[in-house]
């Protein structure tokens, strides 16, 4: 028997939508997409771990990478995740002004993260050290190759997230979201938190271990 349920998700506090799962369709779609993203990043992180275990020589990441700068960047991404969830909580309370403020702060946080990652890349590529006289780039070592691939793909995901949040923020300022209708914020919020979650894992595995 087909189970028909009324979804009362976060974005549908006062409106009812028939779904077979009890979960709004767009939210379910985002979760399925995120599951495919889990496998994508698992492939990258798994490759990093396998290559590192299999390599006889691997540089200690703290001797090559700027850990304090990246720790600060991690903190900024965590802050942007908090402001994203606060934006959702605000519109659920019907506080549109706070929602706009928190969405703008999230956009700012994401942009700062990308800027700092850009600075980190520029320094790595152009600073000449004793270990890497031509700069640390994807050509110099296996570590360089997998480092830029993994963090680069994550950075691309952050960029996509920033573009989507800019779109959602624009809609928020046009008054398109209400206490009863704000599924878009929750859906992009799920993506943004996932990007934050992936970075938490990447920061530990690539930078700290």
């Amino acid at each position, binding site marked *: 028997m087909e189970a028909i349920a009324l979804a009362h998700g976060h974005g549908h506090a006062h409106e009812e939508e028939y779904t077979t799962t009890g979960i709004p369709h767009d939210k379910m779609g985002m979760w399925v997409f995120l*599951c495919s993203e889990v496998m994508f990043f698992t492939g990258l992180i798994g490759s990093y771990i396998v290559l590192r275990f*299999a390599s006889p020589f691997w540089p200690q990441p703290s001797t090559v990478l700027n850990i304090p700068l990246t720790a600060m960047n991690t903190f900024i991404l965590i802050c942007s995740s908090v402001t994203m969830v606060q934006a959702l909580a605000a519109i659920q309370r019907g506080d549109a002004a706070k929602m706009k403020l928190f969405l703008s702060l999230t956009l700012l946080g994401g942009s700062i993260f990308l800027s700092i990652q850009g600075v980190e890349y520029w320094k790595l590529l152009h600073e000449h050290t004793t270990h890497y006289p031509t700069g640390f780039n994807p050509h110099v070592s296996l570590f360089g190759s997998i480092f830029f691939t993994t963090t680069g793909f994550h950075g691309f995901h952050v960029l996509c997230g920033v573009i989507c949040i800019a779109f959602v923020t624009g809609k928020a300022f046009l008054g398109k979201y209400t206490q009863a209708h704000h599924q878009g914020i929750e859906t992009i919020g799920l993506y943004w938190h996932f990007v934050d979650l992936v970075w938490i894992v990447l920061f530990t595995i690539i930078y700290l271990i």
Partner: protein
Amino acid sequence: MTTETEHRTPNYMAIFWWLAGLTIVEVGYSSILPHSHKAALIIGLVGFAAIKASLVALYFMHLRFERKSLGIIVASTLILGCILVSVGIGEAVLPRP
């Protein structure tokens, strides 16, 4: 069938302070512990990262308050991911016959 997934709003700021605190502890742990203690370093740091990732998934992504069916979908993916990484590590670490 009517279902309710509405829930009391979690204390997001408390989660934030936990995440920030754990990040500081992680960085301190990796810089204080000698890198010769590789096993302790890996177990500790992966443990901290797992706690932080769980906090984000459970509270910011609201998985704690979602339906079980969604939890099963996500858990299946994570199990498949763990199998993928475990097989890769085994291939790299275990001696070949």
